[in-house]
Each structure stands twice: as structure tokens, then as C-alpha cells.
């Protein structure tokens, strides 16, 4: 039963990824990204962390996907016809991605990874994440908040028209 649900999520990730990468119309790219992110949230849940799964849904699906959709609506990218095919560029991109994929797969299959016994259930509690963020990884947490502040300020500055109405 758990296997079936797991295969469902893997299927969602692959279908979503395929739509996101291989479709030529930008609307289907976005829908594919949404499906893929949802499947990934399910996989995170299977991998033991419901908190990270909830955060993935909250931030990626509820925030980032909505922002991309918004930007797309404001730039009317979806009403444009798909751009003409560029077989040379697509071909080289496919070769590059395939080479990378096959090469890294060779690397992974010949490597041996350390295995550890599964952690007890109370090691996955949310309280541990909270205390880790504020004690061990405090610097990273504060840096992330500074980065987000800079991103907000930068985004406002870049996209704002100046007082004469022209874009800065």
C-alpha cells in the first residue's frame, strides 16, 4: 500500500518534470512544475519529514508557483504562439543533458555510499529542527533572512517605474 502511494508520487514527479522540460508552451511548463513539486512534497513525506513536505507545499506551490504565474500573466507570455522550433539548439541541449546524465549515472552506480541505521522516530520531531535553526545553524538562518531582505528590496527596485513613468 505504501509502495503504491510511493510509485504514485514518483510518477507525478516524472510526469511533471517531463511536462516542465519538454513542452513548448509555457503554460504547460508551469503546470508541469506544479505537478512535479507536489509529487516531491509527497516523496519528502515518505522520506520521513512531514515538516519539510509542508514547507515545500507552502513555499514552492503556494508562493513560488503563484509568483511565476503572476509574472506570466503580467507579461502576457501565454498568449504568444510558441516560438519557432530551433532544432540545433534543442539537439545540443539534449546531447548536453544526456551526456551529463549518463556520466553521473556511471559515477553513482560505481560508488558505494555509507549507510546508517534509521534514526528513531523522535529524532524527526519538529522541535529539533527549530532548535537546530536557532542554535547550531544560527548563522545560516540569519544570513538567509538577510538574503531574503535583499531580494525583496532588489526586486522592488528593479521592477519599479521611476517618477516619470519610465522604468528605472
Amino acid at each position, binding site marked *: 500500500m505504501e509502495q503504491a502511494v510511493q510509485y504514485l508520487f*514518483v510518477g507525478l*514527479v516524472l510526469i511533471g*518534470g517531463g511536462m*516542465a*522540460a*519538454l513542452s513548448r508552451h*509555457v503554460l504547460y*511548463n*508551469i503546470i508541469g*512544475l506544479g505537478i*512535479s513539486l507536489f509529487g*516531491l512534497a509527497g*516523496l*519528502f513525506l515518505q*522520506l*520521513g*519529514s512531514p515538516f*519539510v513536505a509542508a514547507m*515545500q507545499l507552502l*513555499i*514552492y506551490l503556494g508562493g*513560488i508557483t503563484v*509568483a*511565476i504565474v503572476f*509574472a506570466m500573466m*503580467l*507579461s502576457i*507570455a501565454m498568449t504568444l504562439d510558441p*516560438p519557432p522550433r*530551433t532544432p540545433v*539548439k534543442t539537439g545540443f*541541449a*539534449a546531447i*548536453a*543533458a544526456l551526456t*551529463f*546524465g549518463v556520466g*553521473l549515472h556511471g559515477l*553513482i552506480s560505481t560508488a558505494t*555510499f555509507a*549507510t*546508517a541505521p*534509521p*534514526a528513531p522516530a523522535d*529524532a*524527526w520531531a519538529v522541535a529539533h*529542527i527549530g532548535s*537546530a*535553526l536557532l542554535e547550531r*545553524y544560527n548563522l*545560516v*538562518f540569519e544570513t*538567509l533572512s538577510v538574503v*531574503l531582505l535583499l*531580494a*525583496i528590496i532588489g*526586486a*522592488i527596485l*528593479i521592477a519599479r517605474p521611476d517618477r516619470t513613468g519610465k*522604468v528605472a
Partner: protein
Amino acid sequence: MNLESFLLLSLVLFSLGLFAVLAHRNLIAVLIGVELMMNAASLNLMAFNRFSVTDPVTGQVFVLIIIGLAAAEVAIFLSIILNLYRTRRTIDAEQLTELKG
């Protein structure tokens, strides 16, 4: 599913993201490719967190930071796209060639 299957899935997702970045002309599709690659990395980290590590806190914190940074990066990327659309009326990567040559 064991560790190798998760790594393979994350590799497939990363390759798809790489293809999307290289092959698409629409900047939003490029952004989607970048997001796919970051998610593949997060999946990789969570898989290792589950199977190869004794204390599972570090992986989760890492993935949360990645998600936060991805949000910041998307905000900047989208504001650049909006700016480009306002000035040049296009978001086609092939037509943004001012620095060429």
C-alpha cells in the same frame, strides 16, 4: 525504495532541468528549469538524510534553507523578467543580445 532509486530519480529530474535551461527560449521556462534542478538537489539531500546519516536534522535544515534561497532567487528573476518585458516587449532569450560581440 532504496537510496539508489532516489538518486536515480533526482538525476533524471536534474537532467530534465538542465535540458529546460539550455533548450528553451522563453525566460520563464529557463526559470522553471532552474527550479527543477534545485528540487532535484533537495531530493538528493533528503534521500541521504534518510539513509546515510544518524542525526536527521541537518538534511532537513539544509533543504529548508535551499527552499528559502530558491524563493529569493525566483523573486529577483521575475522582477528582471518584468523589467525586460516593459522595456523591450520580449522575453525571448534569443533576442537579448546587447552584450554580444
